[in-house]
């Protein structure tokens, strides 16, 4: 089987690919899309909870990234720059559509789990419901931090700080505070279940 250039394993680092794109290689941009498409989609989807819209926004993110690539500063991580664009696009969508940043449990549950048994599925749904209801209680910054941290396994605190224009210490402080709150919520829920 012959692989197209986009399907070849991405071995080059982002900087080299960006430089190649700026030298006229659209195939290198295809490799970047290939590498980050799912991550950006997950993040946008976590922000908007709407799969179709997220797909559109995801496309916009990459088109903007390509058109503005000449402005990208090579001393920062490409993925962080991309997530910044994704965040701006998502916020802009919410603002333009006048949607309150909120969670529709139906949409959330619509993203099916691959768990097989009905019990596992019910547990999975319940977990999602609990987490998204908890997210509703957070302010936007804390919610951004959690979304960036957990929608993409590769995000470090430093990356999150860069995307959100915060200090790394500030991100950590907020992140651990939110986790503490969630731990308290879990214990209340478990207590109720026991009763």
């Amino acid at each position, binding site marked *: 089987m012959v692989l197209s250039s986009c399907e070849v394993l991405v071995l080059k680092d982002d900087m080299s690919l960006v430089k190649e794109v700026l030298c006229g290689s659209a195939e290198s*941009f295809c490799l970047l899309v290939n590498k980050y498409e799912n991550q950006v989609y997950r993040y946008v989807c976590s922000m908007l909870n709407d799969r179709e819209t997220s*797909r559109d926004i995801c496309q916009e993110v990459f088109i903007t990234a390509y058109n503005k690539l000449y402005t990208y500063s090579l001393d920062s991580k490409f993925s962080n720059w991309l997530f910044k664009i994704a965040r701006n696009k998502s916020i802009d969508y919410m603002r333009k559509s006048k949607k*309150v940043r909120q969670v529709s449990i139906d949409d959330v549950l619509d993203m099916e789990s691959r768990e097989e048994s009905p019990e596992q599925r019910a547990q999975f749904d319940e977990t999602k419901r609990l987490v998204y209801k908890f997210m509703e209680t957070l302010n936007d910054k804390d919610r951004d931090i959690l979304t960036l941290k*957990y929608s993409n396994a590769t995000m470090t605190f430093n990356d999150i700080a860069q995307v959100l224009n915060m200090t790394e210490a500030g991100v950590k402080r907020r992140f651990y505070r939110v986790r503490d709150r*969630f731990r308290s919520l879990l214990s209340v829920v478990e207590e109720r279940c026991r009763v």
Partner: protein
Amino acid sequence: MDCIVFKNRLNDYLHDNLSGDMESMMKSHMKECEPCKRLYDEETAIDDTFKSAFSIDDRDIKSSRELIMNAIDKNRYGKSPFKKVYFGFRKRAFAYAACAALLLLVIVKGPYLSNLFGSYNNAGLPMPGQSTAGKFPDRVVSEALPLPKIIPSVVLWQAYTKLPKGLSWSIIYGGNNKLMIFSSKLLLLYSLNLSDNTGTMKALELDELGYDYESGEVITMFEPSPDGNSAAIWNSDMNGGGSVAGVNSSLCLYNNFDTFKRKIFKRATDSKLACAWSPSSRYFGFVDINGGSITLYDSVDDKTTDIPFNVGNIKSIFISDFGDITIAADKNYELPKGTGYHIDELGINDILGYNKDGRIVYYYNGKIYERAGGAARIIADMGSSFSLVKKYKVTGVFETSPAIFTDGKSTKVYTPDSGLTSFSFSYDPTDRPMFSPDFKLCLLTDNNKDGIESYSVITQEGNSIKLPQEGNSIMSNYVWLDNTSLVRIRHGVHAQSIGDFSIDRMVLK
């Protein structure tokens, strides 16, 4: 390692922030200490809970790679020296422009530098078709509004001496000397006196509008009326307990910020709604996008009418000032009020709305038509090279922006109220054009190298002026307040006593 050190370093251990040695020490401590191992397991479980909640299986993600690659201009970049110089210049264009502007300012306005922040340029805005040479404002004046006066209110209005921090604020309405600013907890209603830059503000707690997290309700959409006196607020009730979620839709009306009237409609549906105000704000209508019945509210007579409409896949609803309804679905339908709302199928596509005379306006093959009494009249001819690029969306979100047409080089915008206007820039949806009420100016967005947004105002002839960019304006947003002024909200600066945002009015004069 003792348990106290273990607990102190546990968070760093969980998130891979420890050196190799410290990691080994943590692991060996867990082997020896059961309570610490249990603590670690509990923390891991929390991480797993979040990861699981945010997880989307790769198999559920449809790749857009092909669409993206088809949409980009593959010849945009290249090795040619011209392209390198061009993009090198564009990358630093703002710095070059700033230097050039400064130099020009020193040369031209040297004697007046001391009055830099004094009076405005008195040159008027260019008229359509008129040359703009020397007429476009040579600078934008940014004025911070004085802190809004907070006045005591009736029960539904909460007076605040200090707004809560940490909320993300968005301007959702500007015009008619009013501003509405929204967060997930509060709605701020400003009544402005632009002649002396004063204003009053009332803060309304959203839970008074039915937002009640404890009972599982969230606000899913907020739709101000064109005149800014009313708003439709949709509350989504998530009390289904895992079964069927219902939606309680409520229409809230307030009047000149002085009185508050609320009318609530409840509907048992869990799908999306399409809704619209009539141009004069007299009527408000909504319909489930899967069909069922249309609810039309007449705010003058305070009367609600339910009209059966069993057609699905609804994309948009339009209401005229006379109470007529047009629905865009797979086909388009008209429900004229005078006939008791019987359904007529329309043999036309691309409905653009109703004009003030209550006539349907639509687009077909380069021309805009007005429909009256079964006949059609051409009201604008753009030529077949223009195509409609701004289409209606399948949601309850009501797009107040105009229909947009482009031939790839220039852009034309149309509203039934303002008619057809031309701009010489090429339309790019990622620039998010936002037009002034008279459609003589357009605000465009750009991203700088850090992904931070910058904004320019452009005239019909293509002359542009960059708006000042200060502070953390990544979250800033703008609305046109009138034909010559923009209002901007900025986060995290000038916090003072109104919360963590500030509002500027920019006068283009």
